[in-house]
């Protein structure tokens, strides 16, 4: 193991390391801790200049109550759910199919189609912006959740196919050959042989795509406006305009907006990290 395991070092360094850990963590998360403290302070603390001291009273329930019951925040959150969940299902389904085709079959254009998905996935959003906005307008889907979902599914399919294809490539090919010898139809091989083996990949991708889409801001601004369809990332700017300079409420609002992917990460940590680091080791 590198660096030298702490157990094999002098006692003094062990103690230094143990005390450095929490200090380093606090420094790393300092901007976030400040916001968390902001979010439980009363409004008076800001007018009286008590910015970084302890809260003069504990207003967590008041502040978060305002966010939940006195603003459009719950609506934005609900929109985010309605955009994120269908996108995850759509993109994962499409890429399971495409990944199977590219991972199992050998045909001439295989690598080129694969590279098309990979390259498309790296393209800057701005080159798609004008035509996609136009397309969405033409289909009458501007400012609808459906319009956003359709685009997200298409774009995420690039990354998901890359992921699924590499995962399927790593499966033992003998399994598929054995099934073919048995005379099993190709779609049955996909459904009964490959899909059950892909469960970890499906879990990892779902968590990743959930986070990516929940956190998307650019497309939300380009394709939607107003509380009836905007997700929470775009909604938070109008929320902040509503509570201009009310730092205690704005902080509480951003913490609420950030919460779902954070929960997802802590609950599904293993899958999340497996998804992000696929290919980081060979």
């Amino acid at each position, binding site marked *: 193991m590198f660096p030298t395991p702490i157990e094999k070092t002098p006692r003094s360094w062990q103690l230094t390391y143990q005390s450095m850990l929490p200090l380093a963590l606090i420094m790393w998360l300092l901007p976030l801790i400040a916001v968390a403290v902001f979010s439980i302070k009363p409004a008076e603390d800001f007018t009286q200049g008590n910015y*970084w001291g302890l809260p003069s009273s504990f207003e967590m329930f008041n502040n978060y109550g305002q966010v939940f019951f006195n603003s459009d925040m719950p609506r934005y959150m609900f929109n985010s759910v309605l955009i994120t969940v269908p996108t995850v299902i759509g993109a994962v389904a499409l890429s399971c199919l495409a990944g199977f085709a590219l991972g199992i079959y050998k045909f001439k254009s295989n690598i080129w189609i694969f590279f098309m998905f990979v390259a498309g996935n*790296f393209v800057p959003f701005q*080159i798609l912006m*004008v035509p996609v906005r136009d397309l969405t307008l033409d289909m009458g889907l501007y400012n609808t959740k459906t319009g956003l979902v359709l685009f997200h599914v298409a774009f995420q399919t690039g990354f998901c196919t890359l992921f699924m294809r590499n995962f399927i490539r790593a499966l033992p090919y003998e399994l598929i050959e054995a099934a073919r010898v048995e005379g099993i139809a190709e779609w049955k091989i996909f459904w009964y042989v490959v899909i059950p083996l892909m469960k970890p990949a499906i879990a990892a991708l779902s968590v990743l795509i959930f986070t990516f889409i929940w956190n998307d801001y650019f497309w939300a601004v380009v394709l939607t406006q107003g509380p009836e369809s905007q997700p929470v990332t775009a909604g938070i700017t109008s929320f902040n305009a509503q509570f201009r300079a009310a730092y205690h409420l704005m902080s509480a609002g951003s913490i609420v907006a950030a919460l779902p992917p954070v929960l997802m990460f802590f609950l599904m940590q293993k899958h999340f990290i497996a998804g992000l*680091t696929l290919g980081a080791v060979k």
Partner: protein
Amino acid sequence: MTTAQSTPAPAASERSWYKRNEIAITPWLFLAPAILFFAFYVIWPIYQSISISFYAWDGLGEARYVGMANYVELMDDGAFEVSLWNNLKWLLFYLLAIPGGLFIALFLNQTVTGIRIYKSLFFFPFVLSQVVVGLVFSWFYLPNEGLLNGILALVGLGPVNVLGDPTWATYGIIAAGLWPQTAYCMILYLTGLNAVDPEQIEAGRLDNAKGWKMLWYIIIPQLKPATFIAFVVTIIGALRSFDLISIMTNGGPFGQTRVLSFYMFEKALSEYGFRMGYGAAIAVVLFLIMLVFIAYFLWSMWKEEQVR
């Protein structure tokens, strides 16, 4: 024997056309939905953007062909030049996430109690949306209420208004972007460090390789796959920077924090008027810059494929 004639004819002729070509057709059936979606929403729009960049168009009326005029105009557009320089700054300084991530990964690659929680808490900024990161940092930088100036005051340094200062604002935003990006690189390296071959480390120790030498000659070469992915995601992230700028400064002060992706959006879709053709031309420039990196990534992947 009459019965012989009633035995099934050779299988091939009786199997349906689909059955005979199953292996050749199936992949295309499986690929069709993904290719259709992708071509419709990603590939075709790229072509459309390139052609729109030769037109003057306000998004509603008739588009007028202007040839290279949009690109000629870009040449002496001061705001475009600022954006291009800022993109370069982003590319350069964003790469600090890679050594930064390696440093934190080395710091955390131990087995003390509670280390798993430390690792996930160090990683956790990456899960936040860039919008929230932008808000958190713009409050952190606030001239009066911000914690940064509170800390600076403790050591006797005057208040700085990071985001209000044309020279420092871009660096302030890049610093905010580095926070989640470093966390991402850290997790890549932690996974990579797990897979480092312990025998090589032992061999190195016997040869008296220590500290920096061990890191440079034995560890880093083995982390190559992690470094490659860290490089890819950091470059893409740097060129995609939009959310942070839009949230933290909205391009200001005096347009000094614009980058191409933001300037394009501003030109095509903002209160300053809808110049779709001009915006598309900016997007094409950004696309060409990205294409250099995309080509390099694909080439590396292609070499990998050949080895297998």
